[in-house]
């Protein structure tokens, strides 16, 4: 809408910079047993109009990193590092400044649309509220009309009637559309979508993914898509970051990461998943053991107790996220194809150099440290 009026006075962007840049982001939460280190040094950057997928299992820190980046964690969380939106530091920025960016330039869509909406406020008013916060000059009436129009734009039939309804009167898919409408209200250039389709059925998921793709195409918006589902990420993201125990363990073009994974954890994730397109009933390969404790992290690579390639070095030295393979050009940087945090990354060629082991899987994890 009228973005310039609000910010040109105090903000100016450098277009050459990534829209969003996380550097050495660390988050810890106090617990009786000591600080739980949920995010342990994450570096990510997002280019203009790009879609970045962040995958990993529950507890790997993918949501916490993004919530921390937007200052949405509770005050007890300790966040260090740097988060820049077009070069402007967000961590430690005064609330006033943060509020100008959050919601207007960087918006977020949450996992469970039904609980993320306020149950006692009409859907239209919730969307209008976001508009009026950033554009005081917009009247209630105008904001309401715009809210209804947004509901129409995200594909909700009878938007005027739906705007007057409460969240419980909408289906899960419609609530997620309403959440997306809310995020779109101020025409952000970055959308962070945290498991946007996890609570939805597969046919509704397809609708929402289509909608996100269309919005991205029409508005040139950059998207961070957080998901545990590699298939969802593959359908949308150009680059993929795989997280494990609070760190990015692999980063690269989506086709490379999902087609020729370098990190044993990424390979494990891909092998553990049955495929809808394959009729094979071979044994799946589970990743044995469990996530290391966040309170007392392991020495060395966090994945080593569960890794079939682990050796002495892995137990001592934590690997850095570095370029791997022949196609890797020297110099770390997000845009080199194929970064992996592993002492034994698999080579660039060959689809799966470590075929699934056969036989009965031993259950107990190899005893930690």
């Amino acid at each position, binding site marked *: 809408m009228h973005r310039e009026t609000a910010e040109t006075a105090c903000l100016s962007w450098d277009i050459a910079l990534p829209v969003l840049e996380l550097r050495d982001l660390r988050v810890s939460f106090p617990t009786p047993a000591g600080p739980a280190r949920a995010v342990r040094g994450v570096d990510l950057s997002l280019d203009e109009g790009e879609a970045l997928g962040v995958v990993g299992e529950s507890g790997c820190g993918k949501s916490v990193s993004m919530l921390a980046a937007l200052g949405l964690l509770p005050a007890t969380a300790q966040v260090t590092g740097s988060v820049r939106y077009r070069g402007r530091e967000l961590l430690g920025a005064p609330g006033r400044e943060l509020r100008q960016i959050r919601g207007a330039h960087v918006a977020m869509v949450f996992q469970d649309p039904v609980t993320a909406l306020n149950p006692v406020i009409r859907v239209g008013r919730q969307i209008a509220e976001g508009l009026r916060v950033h554009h005081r000059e917009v009247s209630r009436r105008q904001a309401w009309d715009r809210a209804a129009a947004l509901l129409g734009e995200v594909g909700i039939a009878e938007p005027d009637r739906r705007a007057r309804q409460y969240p419980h009167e909408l289906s899960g898919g419609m609530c997620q559309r309403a959440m997306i409408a809310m995020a779109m209200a101020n025409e952000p250039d970055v959308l962070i979508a945290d498991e946007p389709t996890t609570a939805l*059925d597969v*046919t509704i998921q397809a609708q929402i993914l289509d909608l996100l793709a269309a919005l991205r195409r029409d508005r040139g918006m950059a998207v961070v898509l957080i998901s545990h589902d590699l298939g969802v990420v*593959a359908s949308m993201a150009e680059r993929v970051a795989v997280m494990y125990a609070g760190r990015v363990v692999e980063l690269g073009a989506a086709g490379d990461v999902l087609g020729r994974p370098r990190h044993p954890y990424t390979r494990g994730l891909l092998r553990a998943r049955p495929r809808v397109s394959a009729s094979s009933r071979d044994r*799946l390969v589970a990743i044995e053991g469990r996530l290391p404790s966040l309170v007392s992290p392991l020495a060395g690579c966090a994945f080593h107790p569960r890794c079939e390639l682990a050796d002495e070095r892995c137990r001592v030295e934590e690997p850095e996220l570095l370029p791997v393979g022949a196609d890797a050009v020297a110099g770390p940087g997000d845009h080199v194809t194929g970064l992996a945090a592993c002492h034994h990354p698999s080579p660039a060629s060959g689809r799966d150099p470590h075929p699934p082991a056969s036989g009965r899987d031993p259950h107990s994890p190899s005893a930690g440290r």
Partner: protein
Amino acid sequence: MTGPLLEVRDLHKEFPHRGRAPGRGAGARRHRARVSAVAGVSFDLARGETLGLVGESGCGKSTLARCILRLLEPTAGSVRFDGVDVLAASPRQLRALRPRLQIVFQDPYGSLDPRMPVWATVAEPLVVAGVPRRQARARAGELLDRVGLEPEHGQRYPHEFSTGQRQRIGVARALAPGPDLIVLDEPVSALDVSVQAGILNLLADLRAERQLSYLFISHDLSVVRHVSDRVAVMYLGRIVEIGDGPAIYERPSHPYTQALLSAVPDPDPGAGPARERIVLAGDVPAPTDPPSGCRFRTRCWQAEERCGAEVPALVDRGSGHPCACHLAAPVGGSTGDGA
């Protein structure tokens, strides 16, 4: 004995629902609507077979499972387990049947008693069946070992276990009375993929080792394909298509099955030719007011007049497996022409 292990015929389950029928004006009088959750489901399950039941939330999968086990009383229809009429069984007969018919629930948090040590949970069906406590406890230890937990962990309480371990406890409990059939209601939906794989492997091993039959309920088409011999697809209380795995996954003839399969995102960048994606419009209609005729017609891109007038029967329409669609493509036909 021969014949299928489980025969379900024309099963119906309706729930009373107070409130306004949807789609009427605000002035419509309140009346007792009925939610038709399962509307005439019939299928057989052979001995040693795994039948996968897929469908989206609210399609009646879990209600169907609970009706089969008589955890809910069906409104109409019949369920025969090994020749015995489950719905007509007296409480005494039912108690004799229960050990042979077990269930594993989706939520490994809600389905274990937080105040019972897990050995007691696993041993409970044995104790109920009259096994002395000491023996039952020893047996529980063996079962915990079999599902991949330490027997000594029996003294612990559910909160001390991870989600995957709890689901293993649920499986041990279902195994305890020595069942022939286990109904698995979304057994891996709450689990991360790496853990999910371990549970699926365990279920496959147990099935081979004990000649178990499974009714495997899931909304996840990939998981269902992996575990099932045959697959039934449900939509709004009815089975719309049923057949063996390759038939359903490679030659789906019902438009809903086609749409469902095309909507599954596949992470493999090189997985064959790009599949044609069919994105269905709209949501599943409310079960309080299901569409007349074919219940899928409101979202179907092929629907014609006949679909609203006539309920399509679940019969083989030339594709080699039963499909409940008036317009199902005959054998050799292509799979619809997209939206």
